[in-house]
């Protein structure tokens, strides 16, 4: 009996070993991921349900959903939410359409194409703080040219700084953001364009398609998967992107350019209220997850069609 039982036991041990072995090899990566991604996320989440105010250090502890309740009666939160929507959609629209146009231009053969390509990608390489400062100066009527042009074109009554006008201030960072984000779409869409087989264009030309028909019926369908993924990525990035706003307006004047990320930043590092900031960050995360889920659903529907 004993002689029979021993092999079965060792068999079980071997099975267990075989099961665990891959995780042993993966463990360095798993430990690092747990340390630098999962732990901070959990800690961040937990802040959302605590009171952590550096100016009020003895008033800590768990507060449950109090931050979220406060959020719904916070008028600045909703204006920041609306601004985030404007900021994201307007920036995305112009970044995408100008980026696509640029990609189409760069996909043609012309003299000096390599140089122009390199120049186009330059804004992407400039540190955002630097470009934010530069744009802020460009909008300043004392040293910048833009207010004078805008007043000459009749867009504003006199050359003043739109960054100090609560009605228009958000457009300052948006313009800078469009300038900054075009290269991303240009690079990725150009790569997708170059993967379209040239004989499809030739076949379409022989089939009698006009350039517009070729664009709509051949080029766009080919770009669609790339467009879906880049638009999704870009939306999340822009929605989360506070650098330009912080540098150019700091959310002002009178919180008129505050987007959610910049409001979170201000709440956390100016008012030093980490609890409330974390709660808003959790809210932003949920909204973005929702958006991504919808977009992925649409994409799989499109792919099936």
């Amino acid at each position, binding site marked *: 009996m004993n002689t029979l039982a021993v092999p079965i036991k060792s068999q079980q041990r071997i099975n267990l070993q075989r099961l665990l072995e891959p995780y042993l090899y993966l463990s360095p990566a798993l430990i690092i991921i747990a340390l630098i991604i999962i732990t901070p996320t959990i800690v961040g989440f937990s802040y959302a349900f605590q009171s952590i105010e550096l100016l009020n250090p003895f008033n800590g502890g768990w507060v449950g959903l109090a931050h979220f309740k406060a959020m719904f009666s916070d008028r600045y939160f909703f204006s920041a939410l609306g601004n985030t929507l404007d900021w994201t959609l307007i920036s995305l629209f112009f970044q995408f359409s100008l980026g696509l146009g640029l990609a189409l231009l760069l996909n043609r053969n012309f003299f000096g194409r390599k140089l122009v390509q390199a120049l186009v990608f330059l804004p992407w390489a400039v540190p955002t703080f630097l470009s934010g400062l530069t744009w802020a100066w460009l909008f300043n009527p004392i040293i910048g040219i833009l207010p004078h042009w805008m007043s000459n074109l009749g867009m504003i009554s006199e050359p003043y700084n739109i960054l100090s006008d609560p009605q228009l201030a958000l457009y300052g960072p948006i313009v800078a953001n469009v300038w900054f984000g075009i290269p991303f779409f240009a690079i990725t869409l150009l790569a997708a364009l170059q993967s379209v087989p040239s004989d499809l264009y*030739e076949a379409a030309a022989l089939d*009698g398609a006009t350039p517009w028909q070729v664009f709509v019926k051949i080029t766009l*369908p080919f770009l669609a998967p790339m467009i879906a993924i880049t638009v999704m990525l870009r939306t999340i990035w822009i929605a989360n992107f506070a650098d330009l706003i912080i540098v150019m307006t700091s959310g002002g004047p009178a919180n008129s350019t505050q987007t959610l990320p910049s409001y979170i930043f201000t709440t956390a590092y100016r008012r030093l209220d980490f609890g409330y900031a974390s709660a808003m960050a959790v809210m932003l995360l949920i909204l973005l997850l929702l958006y991504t889920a919808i977009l992925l659903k649409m994409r799989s529907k499109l792919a099936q069609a």
Partner: protein
Amino acid sequence: MASITLKNLSMHFDQIQVLKNINIEMQQGEFVVLVGPSGCGKSTLLRSIAGLEQISGGDIFIGETRVNQLAPKDRDISMVFQSYALYPHMSVERNMGFSLEVQKVPKAEIKKIVAEVAKSLGLSQLLDRKPKALSGGQRQRVAMGRAIVRHPKAFLFDEPLSNLDAQLRVQMRLEIKALHQRLKSTIVYVTHDQVEAMTLADRIVVLNAGVVQQGGPPLEIYDRPANLFVAGFMGSPSMNFIKTQVIIEREQLCLQTTGGDKLPLVHQYQDLEVGMQISCGIRPEHISILDSGFGHLQARVSALEPTGISEQVYCDYQGENLCIYSMQRSDCRENQAVALQLDLQQLHLFSEQTGLRLQQLPAAKGNNDADQLRRAGSRE
């Protein structure tokens, strides 16, 4: 349907001349095959007819219209690409109807025309599929269907069968031929496969290095190749060439090989002179291995290639490789010495200097040939 005329067509990329002075007239309803080795400019020529390449000189006429400046879409011709170039995101039906779709033909009508063409090509069951769900032969048929749907003035085929396996290629070849007979359309067909050229063409145009080498009906090209290139290129296995010199032996013009063997000439040839260096061509099916006797040449078997239906024997003669094709199975072994008999009626003479064929003159007397044959035979 329309004729296609190329006049003094030339093209160069930068400094490189790709096509030189091409003159071809393709009749309405004719099946013309452009054949040549890769890089000879045949595809470029086809693409310039389609308008996908800019020509540098000369004229292209489709029907009576000079189309040099016309965009591809205005030339009213359709093309079947080597890669098929099917639109991967569209169904077979939309692929085939695309040319009508962009012309804004009513949808119901497109559906009717596509259904008709699909039926004739055996594609009716596949109309809803995407190209990636089709086999090579089916894609090929869709590509042809797309070309047929809009009744163009001419069809251009750019190596359409080269991506198919051998069996399918034979089958599609027959289908293309049947298609041509049914539609009576003008077809320009590019291939590097001379079997395709021989079997499909009303007329073959052989190209090499951007120059037309010879144009004519398939059998004429095979029987009377105009120069060494055409002789060597057309035919599989290809023609054998033996280096010879013209001499007079017993009052008879002969070709003497470098090994000293003599081949009496049974025909009269234009511009033939004693002492001339001649590349003597003979097709593999016109050499036979003798069971006994000396024959014309003594050679050594270097390799055997039985294919079942036939046999190819490769022999080494004075350092030159000769191929012998026979429907009979020989019992040769490698390294065996064999006597080769040449069909002297079937010699092709090419000037070594110019590479051109020496034209055969019509026989002066009826029995002259027989006379010469008897004399040639008496040597054995």
